[in-house]
């Protein structure tokens, strides 16, 4: 295995697939943000990103800083800060890994199951 790749024996959607993924793993929640960003043209105002994602517990500025400018950067435009995804290929593979690339009913059902398990665990 090379330094810059990691082997995943199971993707989120297909347990029989072997997929090579380039790190860093952004985590599921950050992948959700990246999926939104890429589908919104891969650039959005930082204020808009914050308004939308900080309710979901994501500190966007921290995410940008931790990933670094090779993956996602902050620019300036008419006095506003703009978040720009720099590495679509990297983001795309993780979005796919977390089954967020193309929406489908099955994924929603799976999320509902995850939520209901979580809810059951908290109802002690």
């Amino acid at each position, binding site marked *: 295995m090379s330094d810059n790749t990691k082997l995943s024996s199971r993707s989120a*959607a*297909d347990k029989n*697939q072997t997929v090579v993924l380039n790190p860093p793993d952004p985590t599921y929640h950050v992948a*959700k943000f990246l*999926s*939104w*960003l*890429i*589908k*919104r*043209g*891969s*650039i*959005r*105002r930082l204020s*808009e990103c914050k*308004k*939308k994602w900080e309710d979901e517990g994501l500190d966007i500025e921290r995410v940008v800083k931790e990933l670094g400018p090779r993956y996602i*950067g*902050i*620019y*300036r*435009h008419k006095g506003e*800060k*703009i978040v*720009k995804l720099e590495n*679509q*290929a990297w983001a*795309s*593979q993780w979005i*796919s890994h977390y*089954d967020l*690339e*193309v*929406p*489908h*009913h*099955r*994924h*929603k059902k799976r*999320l509902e199951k995850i939520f209901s398990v979580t809810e059951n665990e908290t109802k002690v």
Partner: protein
Amino acid sequence: MAEERLPELPREFEIYLDKPYGGLFGDNVQTKIIEEVVADPYRDYRPKYLEEMTGAKAPTIRNALANLTNLGLLEKDISDAQHPIYRLNLKSKKIVALTFLSYASIDDRDGTECMDNAILDYYMKVLRQKVQPLAVATMVQYEYNGRIWTDTLSAGGGQLYEENVILASGQA
């Protein structure tokens, strides 16, 4: 504190900040809502939230949501009649097509292959299940002095292995 020094956004990206799908369908509220809900497809949407995200007024949002519901893109949940919730109709093929379009917009701009990856992903995760393989086979063909041998190793149709010897035309 000193102002952070940040690079200027390249000019060609400007249009993607304000116009959905890079301006392909103009700059109207309905298209802004479409781009937003397609980009975040599993969320429950309230009109107030979309007002904040698009900057449009309540009646404009209401009209657009009613229209998108009639078109089958959204489903309206009126469990609480005072505070309706809108969800993306994930059974609509238009949602899949619009997702591909969002990738195509940046591919054309940046020379990336996001749409192709998304199509492949869609095939692997959704379409492939609908395609039942009838047989899996490998075949090797050899030729020597005008004669052709074909070895076929196959699984399916009840036959695991078969070997054929075929004479090339004119040799039979």
